[in-house]
């Protein structure tokens, strides 16, 4: 592995941490398993590429965010107003967005940005040109992190976070949880779409299939981050999620370096998430086995009590 692959992994990790923060909002703070992500990620990329082709690369990020937020709000409405199960609501959106994304891209499965100004071109010709992706992505991430952190510390942010913990309490304390879910899913899918947009600018194209597996990548980042870096305070947790996304990218890069074909990536991702999700159970089983062993070694069993 050379320095360039490392840098590229870091860049992608930083961009994907937007997806991870989005997953963190839906999966953790709302406790809502949201599959809309697969569609809103591609939607963000598609919208952003089209707006960029029209000559507005920076505005395209905002457009992508808004488009993703709208998608998320529809999932929220399906689930809260029409009582469609969260997973199913997400699947419906994912399916519907496939057609919409094709329409956005002018009925093409693939649209490229080659020879167009993109968000990373701002540093072109300057001394830091080699790091333009790294710098731009880090700036965007920093802005998102700061805004999101302070938002989650407001009154509105508090009830949003409490919704996933205990929606009964949130309602009992006078807040409509239908609204907090709507807000949270909009925010979450907005971030996911922003991520899709920034990836499209990085790889210089949007592709109809690029969202496949994004739910899993988002979750993997959240879980890896939490396991490795802790969840003590909100800020620490958010930074952990970001680091989780970067670590995930590094793992993938290393796996590829070892000669694993790129087509096996999705399988690897699935396995990583399965392992990460089962960590608590495995830990518990191991502790139990340890106690059992210690107990038996101690001689007397507790069967009589």
């Amino acid at each position, binding site marked *: 592995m050379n320095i360039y692959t490392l840098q590229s992994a870091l860049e992608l990790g930083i961009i994907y941490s937007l997806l991870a923060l989005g997953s963190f909002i839906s999966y953790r703070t709302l406790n809502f398993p949201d599959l809309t992500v697969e569609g809103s990620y591609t939607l963000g990329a598609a919208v952003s590429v089209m707006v960029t082709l029209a000559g507005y690369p920076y505005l395209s990020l905002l457009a992508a965010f808004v488009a993703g937020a709208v998608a998320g709000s529809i999932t929220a409405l399906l689930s809260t107003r029409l009582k469609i199960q969260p997973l199913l609501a997400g699947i419906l959106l994912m399916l519907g967005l496939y057609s919409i994304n094709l329409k956005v891209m002018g009925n093409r499965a693939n649209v490229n940005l080659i020879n167009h100004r993109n968000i990373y071109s701002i540093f072109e010709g300057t001394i830091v040109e080699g790091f333009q992706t790294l710098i731009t992505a880090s700036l965007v991430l920093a802005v998102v992190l700061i805004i999101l952190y302070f*938002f989650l*510390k*407001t*009154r*509105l*942010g*508090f*009830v949003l*976070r*409490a919704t*996933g*913990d*205990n929606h*009964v*309490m*949130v*309602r*009992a*304390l*006078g*807040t*409509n*949880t239908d609204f907090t879910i709507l807000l949270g899913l909009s925010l979450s899918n907005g971030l996911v779409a922003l991520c899709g947009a920034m990836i499209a600018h990085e790889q210089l194209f949007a592709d109809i299939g690029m969202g496949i597996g994004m739910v899993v990548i988002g979750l993997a980042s959240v879980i890896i981050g939490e396991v490795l870096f802790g969840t003590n305070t909100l800020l620490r947790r958010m930074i952990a999620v970001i680091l989780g996304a970067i670590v995930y990218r590094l793992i993938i890069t290393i796996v590829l370096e070892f000669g694993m074909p790129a087509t096996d990536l999705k399988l690897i991702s699935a396995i990583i998430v399965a392992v990460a999700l089962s960590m608590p159970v495995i830990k518990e089983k191991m502790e139990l086995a340890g106690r059992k062993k210690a107990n038996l070694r101690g001689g007397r069993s507790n069967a009589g009590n």
Partner: protein
Amino acid sequence: MLEIRSIKKVFEAGSINEKIAINNLSLTLEEGEFVTIIGDNGAGKSTLLNCIAGEYIVDEGRILLDGIDITYMPEYKSSQYIGRVFQDPLKGTAYDMTIAENLAIAYAKDKPKNLQPGIRKSDIKMFREKLSLIQLGLEDRLNQKVSLISGGQSLAMTLLMDTIVKPKLLLLDEHIAALDPKIAKKVLQLTGEIVEKEKITTMMITHNMKVALEYGSRTIMMHEGQIILDIKGEEREEMTVESLINLFGKKAKHDLENDRILLSR
């Protein structure tokens, strides 16, 4: 204050499992009245509170709180006026947020949920004072997650959260039933203190007849979705647990006989 006019609540109407949980029940509470509610299992006590809180919508009748018709008001709206403590301590708090953040959410109950900071410095001081009143040492643990404190502690906290903004009505559904006796007693005392001090109109369900007579200013007994006994003042003061049980036996039996008459016709 609270006016319940002939409400009825039927579950699974029309099916073989049809159950009339509340049957033509009327009740009026005065401002500041503290009512204890007793009755056998399935009498409809919880259903009554759930109807008032807006978790269930009644099939017939009206519920007015302070002149406001709350019969069809969604729970999240009527909860602006009503505080509820559930039996399950987990139901009253957000376990993954800190003690201070939980209190802050409760404190913002009647305020707009906007982009103002969730907690201010001045709030912290007030939270600390409030917490020191319940004497569980929580005032020094403001920044710890609620998941780290015990069930009894979080229940006491819920009580605090539900009264930090004075509600027009406080509903307690066997809120101490899941606690061990020592903590239960403490939380009960705390309940009495807070209700008395703030003069909150309160309805408290309990299975403990002694508690029912000891606390509050009025006791009602429910059976098969109706109020079969309603005592206060002198009559209540002279009531003992034994005479209450006797009375309940008589009343409930009376109903049973009525049923028989109906069946034999």
